[in-house]
C-alpha cells in the first residue's frame, strides 16, 4: 500500500472516443496508423499492430502527424495570383471560380494541342489515377518524381531481375545472415528497415553499411564502409572480381535461372553483335555440352556450356554470357588493389568482404523442407537458401553512373544465387515482373483525343523511343529520346528548364501536384525560380500558366497562377494500389486505403479544401475527358472514392484488390463491390492476400506462384522469366549508336551511348567529375535525408522543426584542419555552377573527401507560415543551388543534362566542390532567394496541443 500522503494518480484515464485506422502519408512508406479521436479532434496517432508494413511501430514523422494535420501553413481556399510570380500575393477564390478558370485554360489547350499541357505529379501515391487522367487528356507530358528520385534503381532492377529494392522486395529478414546496405541514410523505407535491422541484430546476423556518412543505419552497422561517392560500382565489381576468381558463384542457380549460359553473337561491326543468338521462334540459344550444338535455352538448362567460343550453323561465332562476364571481371582493373584509392576502401577490406559473402552464401547455406515445382516441370524437394542479402537506395542511384551501379549490385546478387531464395532478397507481389511484363512507353494522340496508352514504360529498344515525325522529342522532358533512352520514370527535373527554353517546344500550362519544384525538388533552385519568373518580349511569362495543388504554403505555391488546396492526409481518400505502388510484403499481396478520418471543414475555420484526385474527377468531367463523363456528358466519378470502388482497369481488376465481387467475397478479381471501402475500413484500412507456402520463393520460376498470381489478377497468364545478367536492350541501343537500324542517335551522342550502354555492368567516372578540374574542385558534396524529416519536408511541423530546424554543412575533420574551420564557422562552398555561404560543423565519421548536409531543411523567407527569422531561413540552406541541371559546357554549344545517360536520373550526388573559410556569421546563408508573402499568415506563438484534455 502506498503511504497515505502519496498523491493519487489516475491510472486509467479515457484515451479517446474512437479509433479510426488509415494509412500514414508523412513519408513514402505507407504505414498503418490508428488515429485516436477525441471531441472530433486528433488526440493521438500510433502504429497499427496488424498492418503488414509497420506492425505497430511508427517513426517520428508519423507521430508528428498531428502537427502536420493542424499546421498553420495549411492552405484554406483556392488562390488566384494577383502579384508577380514568386511574390506570394494571391486572392482567395471559390472552388467554382477555380475550376472554371482551369477548365477554360485547359479546354483551349486540349482543343489546340494537348501536349501543351505538362502534367507532373511529385510524391504522388495515386499515379495510376493521375496518369490515367493525363492519358484521357491526351498529353504525352506526364510523369511523377521518379526521374529525380531513384529511377536508376527501379529500372536497373526491372531490366536485371524483374524488380528492385524497397517497394519491389526486401531482404529475408528472418533468415539472412549477412546484409549489405548501400547508399541509404535513414530513408526508404523507414520503419520496415528499422524493424528488419533489429531482427538481424537479434539473430546475430552481420550488417555492413556502405555509405560515405556513418549516421543512422550506418552508425549501428557492424561494419561501415565509407565509400567515396560515385565509386560504388568499382567496389561492387571488385567484390565480383574476387568471387569469380575464387570460383565462389552459384553455378547451378546461374544455369537454371539466369541468362548466364545464353549465347551472345560475337560479330564486331555487324548489326547483331552483342545480341542473343535465337532460334526461329525467337527462343534464346545455349550450347549443349552433351550434343555440342546450339539448343533452345529452355530445353537444356543444366547441360549448357558456360564458356567457350562456338560457331552456329550459319557461321556466326557465339559465346555464353558467363564466359564474357568472367573475362570482364577477372580483368585486373577490378582487382582490389586497383580500386582501393578511387573507392576509399582498402584492398584488404574488399578481400575480406568478398570472403565473408562467399562463406555466408555457400558454407552457411540453408535449406527449407518445402517442396516446389518449377515452371519447367521439375519438382524440387527443398528450397536452397543463400543467406546474404542487399538493399540500396538513392546514394547509389543518384549518379550519372547510377544505372550501371545498380545493375552491378544485382549481378552480384545473382552470382551468389541469392535472389528469391531463403535468406536472400525476396520480391513482393506483383513483383517479380520483368521488362516484358510492363508496357512500353506511349506518346501518341489517338483520334479519340486520348493518348494511345500509358505514358511511362520500359523501352525494348530504339523502336520504343518517342519522337515526332520530324524527329523531335515527343515529350517536353525529352524522356525516351537518345538523351535518356530508358527514362522509365520521365525527367521531371528537366521540365521547367526545357519549358523555359522552349526546347523541344513551348508549352502553355504547367500543372503540378505535390512537388516543390521552386525549391528543394529542383537542381539550380535560384535559376529555376528565375525561369518561372522570366518573361518574353511581350511581357508574358515564358511558362505561360502554372496550376499547382498542394496542401501547404510551400515555395512552389508562390510561383503558381492558380492554386488548388489539397486536404491533409487524414481528410482524404486514397488507394495504395496493386496497379501502382502497393504495400505488399514478400509473403503477401496487400493494398490499402486512406479515408477521411476527419472531415476538412471540421478541422479549421472556413476551410474549403478538396482532395486533389476528387478535384481531378470534377475537372476531368468539365473538360469532357472520355473516361470522366457518362454517356450523357455528366460527371462520371462523383469523387475519388467513387473511382476507387468502381473503376475497372481490366475486367474484374480495379484499384483495390480486396473484397471484390458483388458480395465482397472475391480476392483480386471480381466485379466492383459498392461496400468495398467499408470492408477496408472494418479491416483496418488494408487488405492482405497471402502467398501460398509453396509459392514463397523462386517466384519468377515457381509454377505455384505463377498460378496464384494469375488467380488474384496480378497477371492474366503465367509470366515466368529468366534473370538477365546481360541486358540485351542495352546492346540494341549500343548497336544503334554504331549506326545500325532505322533509328540511330545523333552523332554527338553516339560515343557516349557506345561507352555507357554496356550490356554488362561497368563503372565510369561520373560526368561532372569528368568535366571539371578535380584539383580545383577536390571534394564531393551530398545530402542525406534525416530519419525524422525525410519526405515530411514541411518545416511547418512544430515538433519536427525542433529536431531538424537547421542543417550545418558537415565537413570532415581533415578538411576542417586544412582550411582552419571549426564548428560554427561559415564557409564558401563553390561548384562549377555557383556558390553558397553556409554554417559548418566538423565531423570525423565520414568519408574524408565528402561534405554533406541534411536535405530540404532550408526554407525560403515567407514560406510555410514560418517567421522571417526562422532558423530554416537564417541557418538552413539548400545544396541545390550548387547543382546545375546541365553539365559544364563542353564548348560544343550543346546542353548536356546532368543525368544518367541511360535513364535520365538526376545526378544529384555527382556534385564536386571546393571549400574556403568565409567571414561570418551572416544574417542568413547565401544566395539570398528573396521573400514571399504568406497567403496563410504566420503560425501562432505558442502551441499547447492537447490542453483541452489535460
Amino acid at each position: 500500500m502506498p503511504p497515505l500522503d502519496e498523491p493519487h494518480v489516475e491510472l486509467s484515464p479515457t484515451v479517446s472516443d474512437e479509433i479510426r485506422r488509415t494509412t500514414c502519408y508523412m513519408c513514402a512508406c505507407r504505414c498503418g496508423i490508428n488515429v485516436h479521436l477525441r471531441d472530433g479532434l486528433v488526440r493521438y496517432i500510433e502504429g497499427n499492430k496488424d498492418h503488414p508494413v509497420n506492425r505497430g511501430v511508427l517513426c517520428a514523422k508519423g507521430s508528428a502527424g498531428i502537427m502536420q494535420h493542424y499546421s498553420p501553413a495549411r492552405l484554406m481556399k483556392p488562390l488566384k495570383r494577383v502579384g508577380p510570380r514568386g511574390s506570394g500575393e494571391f486572392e482567395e477564390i471559390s472552388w467554382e471560380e477555380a475550376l472554371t478558370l482551369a477548365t477554360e485554360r485547359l479546354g483551349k489547350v486540349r482543343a489546340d494541342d494537348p501536349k501543351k499541357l505538362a502534367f507532373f505529379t511529385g510524391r504522388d501515391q495515386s499515379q495510376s489515377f493521375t496518369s490515367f487522367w493525363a492519358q484521357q487528356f491526351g498529353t504525352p507530358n506526364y510523369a511523377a518524381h521518379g526521374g529525380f528520385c531513384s529511377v536508376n534503381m527501379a529500372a536497373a532492377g526491372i531490366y536485371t531481375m524483374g524488380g528492385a529494392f524497397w517497394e519491389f522486395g526486401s531482404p529475408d529478414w528472418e533468415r539472412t545472415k549477412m546484409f549489405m546496405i548501400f547508399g541509404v541514410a535513414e530513408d526508404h523505407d523507414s520503419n520496415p528497415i528499422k524493424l528488419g535491422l533489429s531482427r538481424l541484430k537479434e539473430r546475430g546476423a552481420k550488417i555492413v553499411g556502405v555509405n560515405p556518412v556513418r549516421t543512422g543505419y550506418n552508425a549501428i552497422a557492424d561494419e561501415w564502409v565509407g565509400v567515396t561517392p560515385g565509386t560504388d560500382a568499382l567496389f561492387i565489381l571488385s567484390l565480383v572480381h574476387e568471387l569469380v576468381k575464387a570460383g565462389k558463384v552459384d553455378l547451378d542457380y546461374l544455369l537454371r535461372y539466369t541468362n548466364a549460359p545464353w549465347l551472345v553473337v560475337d560479330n564486331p561491326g555487324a548489326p547483331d553483335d552483342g545480341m542473343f543468338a535465337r532460334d526461329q521462334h525467337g527462343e534464346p540459344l545455349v550450347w549443349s555440352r552433351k550434343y555440342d550444338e546450339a539448343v533452345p535455352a529452355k530445353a537444356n538448362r543444366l547441360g549448357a556450356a558456360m564458356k567457350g567460343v562456338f560457331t552456329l550453323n550459319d557461321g556466326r561465332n557465339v559465346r555464353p554470357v558467363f564466359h564474357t562476364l568472367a573475362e570482364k571481371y577477372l580483368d585486373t582493373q577490378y582487382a582490389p588493389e586497383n580500386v582501393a584509392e578511387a573507392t576509399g576502401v582498402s584492398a584488404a577490406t574488399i578481400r575480406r568482404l568478398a570472403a565473408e559473402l562467399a562463406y555466408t552464401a555457400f558454407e552457411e547455406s540453408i535449406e527449407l523442407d518445402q517442396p516446389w515445382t518449377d515452371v519447367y516441370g521439375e519438382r524440387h524437394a527443398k528450397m536452397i537458401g543463400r543467406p546474404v542479402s542487399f538493399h540500396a537506395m538513392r546514394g547509389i542511384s543518384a549518379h550519372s553512373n547510377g544505372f550501371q551501379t545498380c545493375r552491378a549490385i544485382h549481378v552480384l546478387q545473382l552470382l551468389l544465387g541469392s535472389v528469391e531464395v531463403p535468406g536472400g532478397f525476396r520480391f513482393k507481389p506483383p513483383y517479380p515482373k520483368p521488362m516484358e511484363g510492363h508496357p512500353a512507353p506511349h506518346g501518341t494522340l489517338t483520334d479519340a483525343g486520348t493518348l494511345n496508352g500509358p505514358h511511362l514504360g520500359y523501352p525494348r529498344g530504339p523502336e520504343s523511343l518517342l519522337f515526332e515525325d520530324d524527329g523531335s522529342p515527343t515529350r517536353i522532358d525529352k524522356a525516351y529520346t537518345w538523351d535518356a533512352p530508358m527514362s522509365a520514370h520521365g525527367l521531371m527535373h528537366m521540365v521547367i528548364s526545357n519549358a523555359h527554353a522552349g526546347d523541344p517546344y513551348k508549352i502553355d500550362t504547367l500543372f503540378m501536384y505535390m512537388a516543390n519544384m521552386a525549391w528543394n525538388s529542383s537542381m539550380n533552385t535560384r535559376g529555376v525560380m528565375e525561369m518561372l519568373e522570366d518573361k518574353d518580349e511581350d511581357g508574358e511569362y515564358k511558362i505561360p500558366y502554372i496550376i499547382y495543388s498542394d496542401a501547404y504554403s510551400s515555395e512552389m505555391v508562390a510561383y503558381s497562377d492558380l492554386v488548388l488546396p489539397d486536404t491533409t492526409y487524414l481528410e482524404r481518400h486514397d488507394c495504395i494500389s496493386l496497379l501502382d505502388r502497393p504495400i505488399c510484403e514478400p509473403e503477401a499481396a496487400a493494398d490499402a486505403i486512406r479515408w477521411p478520418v476527419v472531415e476538412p471543414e471540421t478541422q479549421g475555420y472556413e476551410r474549403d479544401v478538396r482532395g486533389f484526385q476528387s478535384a481531378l474527377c470534377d475537372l476531368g468531367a468539365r473538360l469532357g475527358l472520355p473516361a470522366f463523363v457518362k454517356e450523357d456528358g455528366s460527371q462520371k466519378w462523383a469523387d475519388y472514392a467513387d473511382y476507387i470502388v468502381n473503376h475497372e482497369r481490366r475486367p474484374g481488376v480495379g484499384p483495390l484488390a480486396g473484397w471484390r465481387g458483388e458480395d465482397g467475397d472475391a480476392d483480386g478479381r471480381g466485379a466492383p463491390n459498392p461496400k468495398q471501402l467499408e470492408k477496408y475500413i472494418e479491416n483496418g484500412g488494408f487488405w492482405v492476400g497471402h502467398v501460398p507456402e509453396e509459392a514463397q520463393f523462386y517466384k519468377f520460376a515457381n509454377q505455384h506462384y505463377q498460378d496464384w498470381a494469375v488467380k488474384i489478377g496480378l497477371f492474366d497468364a503465367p509470366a515466368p522469366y529468366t534473370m538477365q545478367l546481360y541486358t540485351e536492350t542495352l546492346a540494341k541501343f549500343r548497336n544503334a549508336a554504331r549506326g545500325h537500324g532505322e533509328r540511330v542517335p545523333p552523332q554527338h551522342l553516339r560515343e557516349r551511348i557506345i561507352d555507357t550502354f554496356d550490356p554488362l555492368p561497368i563503372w565510369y567516372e561520373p560526368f561532372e567529375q569528368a568535366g571539371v578540374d578535380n584539383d580545383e574542385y577536390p571534394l564531393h558534396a551530398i545530402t542525406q535525408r534525416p530519419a525524422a524529416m525525410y519526405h515530411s519536408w514541411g518545416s511547418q511541423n512544430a515538433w519536427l522543426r525542433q529536431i531538424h530546424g537547421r542543417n550545418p554543412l558537415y565537413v570532415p575533420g581533415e578538411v576542417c584542419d586544412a582550411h582552419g574551420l571549426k564548428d560554427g564557422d561559415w564557409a564558401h562552398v563553390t561548384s562549377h555552377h555557383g556558390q553558397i555561404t553556409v554554417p559548418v560543423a566538423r565531423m570525423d565519421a565520414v568519408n574524408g573527401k565528402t561534405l554533406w548536409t541534411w536535405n530540404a531543411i532550408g526554407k525560403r523567407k515567407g514560406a510555410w507560415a514560418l517567421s522571417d527569422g526562422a532558423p530554416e531561413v537564417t541557418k538552413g540552406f539548400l545544396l541545390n543551388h550548387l547543382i546545375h541541371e546541365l553539365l559544364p559546357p563542353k564548348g560544343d554549344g550543346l546542353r548536356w543534362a546532368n543525368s544518367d545517360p541511360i535513364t535520365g536520373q538526376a545526378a544529384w550526388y555527382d556534385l564536386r566542390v571546393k571549400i574556403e573559410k568565409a567571414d561570418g556569421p551572416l544574417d542568413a546563408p547565401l544566395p539570398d532567394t528573396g521573400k514571399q508573402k504568406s497567403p496563410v499568415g504566420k503560425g501562432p506563438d505558442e502551441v499547447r496541443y492537447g490542453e483541452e484534455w489535460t
Partner: protein
Amino acid sequence: MTSLPQSTDRKLGLVIDLDICVGCHACVVACKEWNTGGYGAPLSDQDAYGDEPVGSWLNRVHTFEVTPRAEPGAKAVAPARVVHFPKSCLHCEDAPCVTVCPTGASFKRSDDGIVLVNEDWCIGCGLCAWACPYGAREMDGAEKVMKKCTLCVDRIYNENIPEEDRVPSCVRTCPAKARHFGDLADPDSDVSQMVAERGGYDLMPEQGTKPVNKYLPPRPKQDDLAEPINLAALAEPKATGFLGWLDDALTRIG
C-alpha cells in the same frame, strides 16, 4: 524536503539498447504526442513557428561522435563512430530530484518506483532540475511546472487500452525495438535477463543515484575484431585457373 520510499517492491524502468538505436527520434515524438494530451499540463512549444522554437520534451536523443583511441590524445585506432543516446528520467532509487523538492511535488511511487511530479503542488522553483545529474527534467514554458518522464503511468495500467499496449509510448513505437520496459527488481523479467546477458550498465553510477533504467552497450564493430575469413582458403580454383575450375564444376552439376 521530500522523502523517498524506503524501498519499492517493483522497479519499473526502461532498458535501452545502444547497439540498435539508429537515432530516428520516433520515441521522442511518440512520447510528446501521448503526453501532451495526457498526464498533467500539455507539453507546450514556445515560438513554435518562430525564430527560436523551444518546447518541453520528456525524452530526447543525443548524438555523439566517438573516435576510438588507446588513450586520450593518441592516434585513432579505428574510424570515428556515431552513437545515438536516448535519454529520459531514469527513475533513480536514490532520486535527488525528489529529496530536493521543497513542496513534496516530486515523489517516487512506493508501488512501482516511478518518479512523478504532482503538478498541483509544483511551484516551478526548478531545484529538482538542478539536482538531477542527467538533465532529465524540463520546465514547461507555458505552465511553469516541471515536466518529466512518467513512464506513461497513464498507459501501463490503463484498462481503456488493450493489454498488449500497456507499455510506455516510446517502447510501443520504437521501430528498431531498442527500448524495453519491465520490472528491474525481478531478476527473471525479460529486461533483467537482457541486462545480465548484455552487460547492461548504469548511467553515471558515480553520482550514487542508483538509476533504474539501464543501457545496453553497442556490440564490438568490425574494427574491433581480428581473424577475418580468408577467401583464398575457401577458393576452389587451383592451378587450372578460373575457367579450368568452371569445367570441373559444370561436370559436377551434370
